[in-house]
């Protein structure tokens, strides 16, 4: 059987199915949504969205509606703010502007949200599921985890000026240590504090290494509690070396995110395909008292990974000629299919369809011309 026969089922379909099984196995319940949502929800939280542009339309009742550019906001809005913990996953299409083309695209997004009484176990569980979602895409993947409060405390340690802090965050996201030096000179900041910030943003590696590096920074703000939380949250990766790292270049908007934030990368895809974190601040902004953590996996990014071209349109071209009985052709196709072959039937041989091999149907019997015996 040819390996590429399975090309008839899309790799992303298989992936989504395995992800649903993964999330269900941890007690997450599927959450289905309508494609539309009140525009107000997004217009008040545009900074939270990947792209601020939204497709809108006026509903029959005159209400301004939007095609969903994001799933998290809808889930939070519709999730009751009650005690306990809701664990939900989704597989939905969202509509937003693609960075590359600058035009709107329908994007398939899979993800999960853990809302309510979110403790450190919940955070570890979400990190674990994020890492295993990446592994389902490719074994060569890595989850990159950061802690916004640690980064923010280090930035405030350097300067309380919001504009300086913004630049420090930008420098962190680009691992731009010369930018920190420049800022230090320009604003007359304390060089020792700037050095500490530089050390923080240069840290990279598994949890043990980075936490040891973080502890070894002499001159720093008090981040004991956050470091301990990060260490506990990352403990699920102790036996999975290389699957998750800590890197403070992962940042996020602090009006929405707080605490741990993370991105997922897969070898062969140039950008992050998974994004998530703790977003208690967003919950608060939407009038909820609970905590929340979740992530989204952007399946549109996988096009490049699965785009290894199939050299042939079919494995065999079956030429049935002028006088063949239709039922004989179908039977011949079924026989070849049972051997794992994709069959393209044609009265005459055509080169418009690329096939590995050619066969003729004569008197109800298949005669292979070349290649496949």
């Amino acid at each position, binding site marked *: 059987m040819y390996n590429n026969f399975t090309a008839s089922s899309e790799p992303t379909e298989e992936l989504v199915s395995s992800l649903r099984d993964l999330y269900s196995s941890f007690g997450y319940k599927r959450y289905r949504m309508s494609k539309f949502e009140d525009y107000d929800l997004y217009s008040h939280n545009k900074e939270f969205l990947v792209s601020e542009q939204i497709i809108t339309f006026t509903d029959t009742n005159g209400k301004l509606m939007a095609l969903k550019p994001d799933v998290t906001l809808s889930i939070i809005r519709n999730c009751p703010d009650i005690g306990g913990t809701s664990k939900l996953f989704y597989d939905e299409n969202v509509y937003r502007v693609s960075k590359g083309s600058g035009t709107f695209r329908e994007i398939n997004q899979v993800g999960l949200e853990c809302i309510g009484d979110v403790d450190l176990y919940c955070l570890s569980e979400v990190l674990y599921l994020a890492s295993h979602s990446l592994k389902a895409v490719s074994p*060569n993947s*890595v989850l*990159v985890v950061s802690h916004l409060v640690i980064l923010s405390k280090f930035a405030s340690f350097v300067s309380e000026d919001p504009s300086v802090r913004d*630049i420090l965050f930008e420098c962190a996201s*680009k*691992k*731009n240590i*010369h*930018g920190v*030096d*420049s*800022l230090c*000179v*320009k604003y007359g900041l304390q060089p020792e504090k700037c050095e500490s910030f530089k050390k923080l943003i240069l840290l*990279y590696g598994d949890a043990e290494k980075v936490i040891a590096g973080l502890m070894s920074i002499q001159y720093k703000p008090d981040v004991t509690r956050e470091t301990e939380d990060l260490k506990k949250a990352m403990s699920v990766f102790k036996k999975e070396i290389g699957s998750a*790292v800590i890197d403070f*270049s992962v940042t996020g908007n602090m009006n929405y995110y707080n605490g741990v934030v993370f991105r997922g*990368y*897969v*070898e062969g*895809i*140039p*950008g*992050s395909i998974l994004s998530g974190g703790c977003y208690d601040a967003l919950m608060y902004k939407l009038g909820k008292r609970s905590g929340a953590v979740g992530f989204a996996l952007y399946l549109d990014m996988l096009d490049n990974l699965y785009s290894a071209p199939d050299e042939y349109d079919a494995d065999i071209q079956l030429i049935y000629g002028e006088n063949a009985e239709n039922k004989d052709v179908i039977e011949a196709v079924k026989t070849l299919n049972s051997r794992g072959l994709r069959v393209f039937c044609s009265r005459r041989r055509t080169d418009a369809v690329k096939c590995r091999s050619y066969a003729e149907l004569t008197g109800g019997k298949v005669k292979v011309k070349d290649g496949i015996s």
Partner: protein
Amino acid sequence: MEFLNIALPKGRLGEKVYRLFEEAGYGCPSLLQPGRKLIFENSENMLRYFWVKPSDVAVYVERGAADIGVAGKDILAEYEPDVFELLDLGLGACRVCVAAPVNFCDDTRKTLRVATKFCNIARSFYADSGRDIDIIPLNGSIEIAPILGLSDVIVDIVETGTTLKENDLAVISEVMQVSARLIANKASFRFKNVQIEQLKEKLYEKIGANRYDQNITK
């Protein structure tokens, strides 16, 4: 070990940058041979170099066609690619400036017409001061725009100032300092971390901490 793909800017700056890489132990002897070839490999060091248009280096790196590259800070500020900016190489130092005819007097009652190929940099610079401007995007020979009355001022790269002087223009304000930066794709940084960090360290050693400190610019 996999190949490390490196995008270098074509031209004088690219050749200087390559010399620095070569001195740091990342040579690829065929690269400087005359000819029109654009891709060069050194399979011994597992390096693959590409010569690309300077303004395209960041695109190659952001989209992962190159793992690392060298791009001017002007290009990074203009296009804001989502890449790591690992090192200021200090090469190709110059400035992005606002320049105007020598007798220019800004009439603040009118919208200021700004000709430039750095539309985002210009927009951001004037947004900080709240000045109302009309951007006129151009791709070259920016200096003639104010002479022909197309614009009031220009925002452009200034190296020695000779071109400005020869066209009766003068710098009226500096927007930013520019030099070549080592950039890395954010995914490549994870999967080729040891290779990229080693290269960065060796380049850092080569450019010398002292020279580096003198050239620090954001």
